[in-house]
C-alpha cells in the first residue's frame, strides 16, 4: 500500500475511534445540591433518588446510547455558592444538562445563568421562583400549581372555610426567609379572597431560640385560624411552643417544612396531633401514585445506610419524577437541544412515579396537587406508625380527600 493509502486508513481509523469514543462519552447532568447546612437532610435524600434513577437508566442501556453520569457539588444551602457552581458545571465540566438544587433559596440564584445560556432548567421544590423571571425554559416538579403561592395555601384555606361556623379571623406568622415570605404572600391573598380578617401578621428571625413569646402574642389576638410558614428548626420550635402555651384556635398549621420527613415526625411525635400541614405523599392515597411503593422500598434501604430521611415521602419521589420527565423528553426529542426539550416539556404529559405530570406555560404544574393533611392519633416517637395508613387525614385536593378536619385544634392533641 502506498504512503497516501496508509495515511488515509490511519485517518479513517482515528475518525472511527473518535466517533465511537464520542458515543461512549457519558451524558453528564450537573447540579448543586444541599449536602450540608440547614436543608441538607432533604438535599441528601434527593441526591439518593437521583442516583437511583441514574442506576435504573444505565441498567437499561443509558440515555441516547450513552451512560448517564451525575456531576454535582455541595451548595451548603448557601445561595451565594450557586452561581459559581453552575458556571463551573457549564464551562469547566461541560455538562450536557442541568437541574436545580433543592429549595427556593438556591434555585433563584441559578436563574440568571440559565437565562443567559438558554438552558432548560428543571427545578426541585422552589416556591414561585419564576414569577419574577418569567423564563420560558423553567420547569418545576413541585405540584404547587400554576400560581404556586396560591396553590400552596389553597388547601388550608379551603378546608378552613368548610368549618361550621365559618372562621372570621386569621393570624399569619413565619420566618424571615425566602420561602416563608412567599408562602405568607399567598396566605394574605387567600385571606383577602375568603374575607378573613388578618389579626396578626408578623415574622421572626430564623434563629429564634424561644418561640413562646410569639405564640402568646398570637393567642392574645384570639384568632380562629393560625397559618405558619416555617423551616425545620422553627417548625419544631413553634410546634413545641404551641403545645407548651396551649394555643387555642380552630385550625393551626399550613406551611410547615419539616414534618414531611422522618426526623421531625419521630422527634415531635404526638406534638403533631391536630396540626394541619402540607405533604407531598401519604400512605393513605398510595393508590394514586403508581409504582411509587417499589421506588420507596429501594430508596428506604439506601437512606437508612446513608443516615438520611428513612421515610422518603417528601422529596425523593419528586426528585426521581423530575429525572423521569427529562429522560422521556430526551428520548422523544432524540437529543439534548435545550430549545426542543423545553418545547416538548411544555406540550406533552408525562407518566412518572408520582402520577401524570403536565406543565403550564410558566413551567409550574398545570393543576395543583399538594396534599393538605391533618395529623392525628400519633403516639410515641417511633417511625413505623407513619409508614402505614392511619395517622394522616387527607383534606385536599378533593379527589384525594379521605376525611374531614377535626376542630378545634386544642381538642385534637391526643
Amino acid at each position, binding site marked *: 500500500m502506498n504512503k497516501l493509502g496508509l495515511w488515509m486508513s490511519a485517518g479513517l481509523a482515528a475518525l472511527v475511534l473518535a466517533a465511537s469514543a464520542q458515543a461512549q462519552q457519558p451524558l453528564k447532568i450537573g447540579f448543586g445540591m444541599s449536602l450540608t447546612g440547614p436543608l441538607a437532610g432533604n438535599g441528601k435524600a434527593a441526591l439518593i433518588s437521583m442516583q437511583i434513577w441514574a442506576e435504573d437508566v444505565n441498567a437499561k442501556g443509558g440515555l441516547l446510547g450513552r451512560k448517564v453520569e451525575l456531576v454535582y457539588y455541595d451548595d451548603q444551602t448557601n445561595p451565594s455558592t450557586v452561581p459559581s457552581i453552575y458556571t463551573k458545571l457549564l464551562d469547566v465540566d461541560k455538562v450536557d444538562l442541568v437541574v436545580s438544587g433543592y429549595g427556593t433559596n438556591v434555585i433563584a440564584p441559578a436563574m440568571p445563568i440559565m437565562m443567559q445560556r438558554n438552558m432548560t432548567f428543571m427545578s426541585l421544590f422552589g416556591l414561585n421562583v419564576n414569577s419574577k423571571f418569567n423564563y420560558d425554559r423553567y420547569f418545576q416538579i413541585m405540584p404547587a400549581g400554576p400560581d404556586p403561592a396560591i396553590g400552596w395555601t389553597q388547601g388550608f384555606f379551603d378546608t378552613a372555610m368548610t368549618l361550621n361556623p365559618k372562621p372570621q379571623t386569621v393570624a399569619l406568622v413565619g420566618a*424571615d426567609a425566602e420561602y416563608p415570605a412567599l408562602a405568607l404572600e399567598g396566605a394574605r391573598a387567600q385571606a383577602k379572597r375568603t374575607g378573613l380578617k388578618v389579626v396578626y401578621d408578623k415574622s421572626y428571625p430564623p434563629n429564634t431560640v424561644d418561640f413562646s413569646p410569639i405564640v402568646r402574642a398570637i393567642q392574645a389576638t384570639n384568632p380562629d385560624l393560625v397559618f405558619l410558614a416555617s423551616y425545620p428548626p422553627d417548625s419544631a420550635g413553634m410546634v413545641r411552643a404551641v403545645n407548651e402555651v396551649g394555643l387555642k384556635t380552630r385550625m393551626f398549621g399550613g406551611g410547615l417544612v419539616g414534618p414531611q420527613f422522618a426526623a421531625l415526625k419521630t422527634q415531635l411525635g404526638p406534638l403533631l396531633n391536630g396540626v394541619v400541614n402540607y405533604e407531598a405523599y401519604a400512605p393513605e392515597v398510595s393508590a394514586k401514585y403508581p409504582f411509587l411503593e417499589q421506588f420507596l422500598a429501594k430508596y428506604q434501604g439506601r437512606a437508612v445506610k446513608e443516615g438520611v430521611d428513612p421515610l422518603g415521602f417528601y422529596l425523593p419521589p419528586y426528585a426521581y419524577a423530575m429525572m423521569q420527565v427529562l429522560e422521556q423528553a430526551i428520548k422523544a426529542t432524540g437529543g439534548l437541544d435545550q430549545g426542543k426539550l423545553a418545547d416538548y416539556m411544555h406540550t406533552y404529559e408525562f407518566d412518572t412515579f408520582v402520577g401524570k405530570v403536565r406543565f403550564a406555560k410558566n413551567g409550574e404544574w398545570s393543576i395543583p396537587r399538594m396534599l393538605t393533611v391533618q395529623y392525628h392519633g400519633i403516639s410515641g416517637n417511633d417511625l413505623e406508625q407513619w409508614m402505614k395508613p392511619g395517622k394522616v387525614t387527607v383534606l385536599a385536593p378533593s379527589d384525594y380527600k379521605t376525611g374531614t378536619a377535626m376542630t378545634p385544634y386544642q381538642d385534637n392533641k391526643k
Partner: protein
Amino acid sequence: MEFPTALLLNAIIAGLLLGGFYAAVSVGISISFGMLDVVNIAHPAFIILGSYVAYIVNDRMGLDPIAVSIVLSPLFFALGMLLYRIYYLCFEKRGQESLRGLAFFFGILFITEVVLLLVFGVDYRLVETAYSSVTLRLGVVDFPLRLVVPFVVSVTMVVGVQLFLARTFFGRAVLAVAQDQLALRLMGINPVRVKEFAFALSIATAGVAGAFLIVIQPVQPAIGREYIGLVFAVCVLGGMGSIWGTLLGAFVLGLAESFTSTFFGPSWAPAVSFGTLLAALAFKPSGLLGR
C-alpha cells in the same frame, strides 16, 4: 400601647428563662475573652460538641442530657487544657496571638463542625427528657420545664463559677492573671498554668451549655455560628471579666428579645438586642459591671 398583665408577666418570665440560658453559653467567653484575652471564636463549636455528646448518651442509654454533661465536664476540661497548651506554645508565647491565634480558633471552629457533620450527618437532633413537654402553671404565668431546668442549672453554674473565682485561691489567681501577669509571676505562681486552668474551665462550661441547648431546641452541626455574635455581645455588655456582668447582660438581652417578640414583632428582636448593647456601651464603654 397596652400591656395586658398576663402577657407582660409571661414576657418577663420568658425573658429571664432565656437570659439564664444565654448566660450559660456566654460565661465561658467571659472567662476566655473577658479575663484571658483569648479570642476563642470556636467557643460555640464546643457548645455544639457538648450538645452532641449529650445527644449520644441520651440516645443510647436514655440518661438525662444535663446530668450527663455535668458528669462528663472533666472531659471538656481536659480538652480545654490541651487546646490552650497548643494555643500558648504556637501563638501566645511568640506574641502572635492576635491575628494568627484568631485564625487558629476559626480553624478549630470549622474542623469541629465538619467532624460533627461527618460523624452525625446533617439532620437536626433533639432529645426527649422527662420534663421536655411539661409546663407548670402558676396563675397566669407559664413555666415550661424545658426552659426552667436549664435556667436553674445554668444560674447555679454561673454563680458557682463566680464564687470559685472570688473565694478560692486558684480562682483569685485567675482574676490576678487578668490584671497583672508579671506581678503574679513575682509571687511564685506560673501564669501559664493559671490561664490553662481558666481556659479549660471555660470549655467545660461550654460542654454543659451544649446540653442546655439541645434540650431547648434542635441542633445540627452548623448552628454554632449563629451564637458567635450573641456570646460576645453578652460578654461585652456585661463588662469584660465580670461574671455577674455576664449574668446581668444575659438577662438584659433575654428580656429585650422577649419583650420585642411579644409586643412589637419578633423581626425586631435582634435589632433591639444589639441596639441595647450599643446604647449601653455608649453610656458605659466598659460594660454594665465592667471595671
